[in-house]
């Protein structure tokens, strides 16, 4: 399947041979943001550059969600991953969702998975972090 028939779950996920996340980095103070910006919330600067986020990181916090809004499959592990100084919000995937298997400080790496294909044959690709 060629890359042109794929679409990322969110626009800051870059697909291709080495899938990774991208952020808008403030050129004045270095603050990083995953959404589009009017200005930097830290220093009010208005110049940004696109930067790639490290694909490996460490779990700084997590929860195992067993009760969620209708339509959200459970259980899943929600986490905050420290990717070389940039905090990323993601699910932990390819790991048993139990406190015995998910640990604070565990090393993880970015991984992608398919969300399915639409009527036009386009496949949506999501991301998470799996044990490194």
């Amino acid at each position: 399947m060629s890359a042109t028939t794929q679409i990322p779950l969110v626009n800051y996920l870059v697909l291709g041979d080495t899938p990774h996340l991208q952020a808008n980095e403030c050129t004045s103070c270095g603050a990083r943001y995953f959404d589009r910006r009017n200005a930097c919330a830290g220093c009010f600067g208005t110049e940004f550059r696109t930067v790639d986020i490290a694909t490996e990181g460490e779990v700084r916090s997590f929860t195992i969600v067993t009760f969620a809004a209708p339509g959200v499959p459970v259980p899943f592990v929600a986490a905050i991953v420290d990717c070389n100084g940039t905090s990323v919000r993601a699910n932990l995937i390819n790991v048993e969702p139990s406190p015995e298997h998910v640990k604070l400080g565990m090393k993880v790496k970015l991984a992608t998975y398919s969300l399915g294909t639409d009527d036009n044959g386009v496949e949506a690709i999501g991301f998470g972090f799996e044990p490194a």
Partner: protein
Amino acid sequence: MADDIYILGIKMTKFGKHPDKDTVDLASEAAMAALADGGVTMKDMGILAAGCLMGQGSIGQQIQKQIGQTGIPVFNVSNACATGATALRTAIMAIKAGECDMGLAVGVEKLAGAGLLGGGGKPKSDKKEWTPGGRYGAVASTDGRIGTDAMPGTFAQVGMEYGHKYGGATFELFAKIAEKNHAHSTLNPLAAYTKRMTLEEIMNDVMIAYPNTRSMCSANCDGAAAAVVVSGSKLKTMSLEQQRRAIKVSASILTSDPWQEACQVLPDVNTLTKIAAKKAYEQAGVGPEDLDLVELHDCFATAELVHYDNLGLCEEGGAVDFFNSGATWRDGKTPVNVSGGLESKGHPIAATGIANIWEVCHHLRGEAGDRQIEGAKVGLAHVIGLGSACGIHILEKSALG
């Protein structure tokens, strides 16, 4: 030098299920009770500030239509779980600005049976055609795919992050915090739940978002609370009894979350609380060691732990040891949430930020009955609204008392 501010009258309704009353009924009940408690009427009020987070935005005028339309300015406020504290802060600011000498603040919510708050969002069916939308160009709902949007998991991560930083924050420790609050609630007739729960019952309860089980989550319920505030100079013209029962507002602080790395990934409930606490202690001229009781925002057991640290009740990083010392039980050094807290008293969102002040005032007036903290002179009430807003009020017993 601005005039001092006092709570003249304050009341909360019973928290719980009120199927026969709507938000206007509950808010009006609390407002009239607060006016009566202060020995004043709507005629004396120069401002009304009111909030109902899940409401339509004109709760203040709806209350007036039940209890008295006098033409005074109404501020309908909305600030997540800090809505009640924001209403109070608004009334206080009006008095401090010299626009009036008395004001009424009301918070109300009907949440009984509301279930999970936050999360889900607009249902986006995963089919037909992937179409990017929203600020992140998402082609499907991100709740459950990119972390969690719901409150239990969000605050679970707040507590777990503290544990990662300082250690010792186990599932059992968080459950013990809930055990304390449920034990405290047995003495509070206005609490939604007053059942003592064993540690085992709490840990074996339905898991919502590890490490928060159901009994470690704030209880959705109905309720309202209201407060009448007055300037110090006006209070001096009132009866000795009114002056004796008036509670001094030594500090009234509202903050929002300053930018921090990660704050747009996981809401930062720490920095704004630390800043608010520092300002409040400075404004009041008291320190955490002077507090006889604290009502803090235990929307989840995992949240209570971090606020021991944020409010300076313990040394930095020392919240686990502080709790384990027994300090926050009602017979401890710094009793925390002797009302039962949001986990058992309940959390009718916009009412919470005034109800916690009522609890503190109740003790400072020596009117708390079975759960009275003996000789209480100074107390602190804290709320956090996610997004974020933090309200802190420090209250002191009247010198006449």
